[in-house]
C-alpha cells in the first residue's frame, strides 16, 4: 500500500518545497527524506516512492540519494540512536573507552540494535565539536566531554 505523510508532515513538506524555484523541486529530496525518516523511523522503498511523487521524479532517483547518505536508515533502528564520534580529536581524548563502556553497558557492538529496539549504537565521523571530546549524538542531542559517570546519567535520563 502506498505510504502517505501525515497532515502535519505534509504541511511541513509543502513549506520545504516552497524554498525552491517551481521547476527545481528535486532539490527537496534530501530534506524530504529527513522528514520521511522522522515520520516512519527509517526510509523504506515505499517512503522513497512517496518522496518521488512529491518532487515529480522516478523512485530510483530518490533511492540513489537515500542510499548515498549515511544519515538515512534503511533498516529500523532503536528508539535512541547513539552515535559516538571516533575521528582523531575524539580518539585522542578517549572515544575508545566511551565506545567500550557503552558497548558493554548496552550489550551492543557498534552497528547493532538491541532486540527490544531501545538502543542502536553506531560510530560516526567527526561531529565538529572537537574541543569538547569525546562526544556523542543521541538522536538530535549532542553530549560532550563524556566520562563513564556522565554516560550513566545520560542513559538514566533516557529511561
Amino acid at each position, binding site marked *: 500500500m502506498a505510504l502517505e505523510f501525515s497532515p502535519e508532515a505534509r504541511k511541513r513538506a509543502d513549506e520545504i518545497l516552497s*524554498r525552491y*524555484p517551481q521547476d*527545481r523541486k*528535486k*532539490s*527537496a*529530496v*534530501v*530534506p524530504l*527524506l*529527513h522528514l520521511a525518516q522522522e515520520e516512519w523511523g527509517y526510509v523504506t522503498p515505499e517512503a522513497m516512492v512517496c518522496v518521488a511523487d512529491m*518532487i515529480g*521524479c522516478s523512485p530510483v*532517483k530518490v533511492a*540513489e*540519494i537515500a542510499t*548515498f*547518505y*549515511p*544519515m*538515512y536508515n534503511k533498516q529500523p533502528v532503536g528508539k535512541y540512536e547513539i*552515535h559516538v564520534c*571516533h*575521528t*582523531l*580529536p575524539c*580518539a*585522542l*581524548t578517549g572515544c575508545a573507552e566511551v565506545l567500550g563502556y557503552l558497548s558493554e553497558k548496552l550489550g551492543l557492538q557498534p552497528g547493532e540494535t538491541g532486540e527490544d529496539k531501545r538502543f542502536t549504537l553506531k560510530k*560516526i*565521523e*567527526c*561531529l*565538529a*565539536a*572537537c*574541543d*569538547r*571530546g569525546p562526544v556523542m*549524538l543521541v538522536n*538530535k*542531542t*549532542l553530549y560532550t566531554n563524556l566520562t563513564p559517570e556522565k554516560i550513566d546519567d545520560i542513559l538514566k535520563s533516557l529511561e
Partner: protein
Amino acid sequence: MAAPISVLTKELRENPRLADIDVYIAQGGYKTVEKVLKSMTPEDIVNEVKNSGLKGRGGAGFATGMKWGLCAERFPLYLCVNGDESEPGSFKDRLLLEGNPHRVIEGMIITCFALKINLGYLYMRGEFFQIIDQMEACLKQTKAHGFLGKDILGTGFDLELYPQAGAGAYICGEETGLIESLEGNRPYPRLKPPFFPAAIGLWGQPTIVNNVETMAQVERILDMGAEAYKQIGSADSTGPRLFGMCGHVKKPGIYEYDSTVTIRELIYDVAGGIPGDRKLKGVIPGGISAPILTPLEIDVPAEFGAMGKIGTMGGTGGMIVMDETTSIVDALLNASSFARHESCGQCTPCREGVPWMNDILRRIKEGKGRSEDLELLLDICVQIHGRTVCVFGQAPGVWPVRTMIVKYWPEFKACIDQKRLVVLPVDESYLKPDQYEFVPPVPGNFRLKPEAVAAAGG
C-alpha cells in the same frame, strides 16, 4: 606574543542569547545591512571586500573578493553558504552558527546585495540538528523584521534565504558536491576547470559558494571598513582568525587571534600547553587534511602564506595537537579511516586507493607490516594525486599519508621491523627538517632525502 582579539567573537562570548533577533538588534545587529543597502552600491561592496584582502575561511584560503569578481553577470545568480563543517579538527563554524547566527545572515544579505543575488541557501551538515532548527527560526525572524523578502528596507532589493540540511556526507563540503547535493543529485563533485561555480553553478547559473565564517567576516569588513580590517593581521592574511585548539591541550576551544600568532604560541600560551606537561609529538594545523608539523616546525606564524611555504596549509584553523604518547601510525590510520568512509566513490583512484592505503596502515598497526609497505603507500599516493575530479582524493586522502610517513619515517619503520605497534621516544620518532624536502606548490608534497632513508636503516 600576539594578543587575543575579539572582532568576531566579542558579542557571542558576552551574550548567549544572540540567536534572538531582538537581542542581536539591541546590541547593534543589522546596522551593517542597513548602512550597506542604503548608502553603498554593489560595486562599492565588492571593492571593499577585495581591498580587505579577505581570504575564504573554508580551508583553501582563496581570496573572497577575487572569487566574487569572477562571477559572471548572467542572471539569476545564486549564493550557497557552506556550513557543512566536517573536516576533522574544525569546529569554528559551529561556534558562529550556534552563537551568532544573525551575523552570518547579515553577511549573506550583504553578499547577495553586492552580487545582485535574489536567492540563497545556507547548507548545514545534517548532524547539526539543533543549529538547523535555530537557523530556520532566525531566518524567519529576519524576514519578519524586513531584512529579507521583497523590497528590503525600501531599497527595491528582493532576497530570500533558506536553510538546507545535508545528510552526513563530508563530500558535500566540496563546493560542487554541495551544489549537486542542493540540486537533489548524488553529491559527486564536478570536473573543474574549465567551469567553476562562478560561471556555471547551481541549476547551471553563476553561483558563489562561501564558507560560514567568510560571511561573518564580510559583515565585519563592511561594518569597520576595509582599511581598518586590513590593520588586523599581516598583509598576507588579513583580519581576525578563529583557531580551534583540540586534542592534547590543557585548554581546548576556539581562540580569536590575528595570523601573526605562531603555532607554538597557540599550543603553549593560548591553549595552555600539553596536559601533564608531556612533550609534543606533532600538530595537524588546519583540519585533518593539513600536513602535520613536527615539534621542530612550529615556530611559524599561522598565516596562509607562511604555512603554505613550509608545505602545510592554514586550512580551517582547527589544530589537532598530539603528545608524546600518541602513535603516529595509529593517528594516520584514524585519518585514513575517515577518508575511506567519506570518499564519495566517483573516481576510481580515490575509491580504490584510499581503502587500499587504509588496509596497509591497519596491517602495519597490527604488526603485520611488510618491508615494502612504506614505499607502496608513497607510490599509491602518487597514483591518486591529481587523478581525481576533486581535491578529496589528495587532501584528506593523500596529504596526511605522505607527510606523516615521510616526517615520522623512523616510527613507521620501527612498527614494521618489530612487527608491533611501536611508539618511539618522541625525539627519535621524527626526522629533522633537513632530512626531507618539500616540493612546492601542492601541500604535503614531501620527499625523503636518500641519505635520511639510509641513516634510518633503509
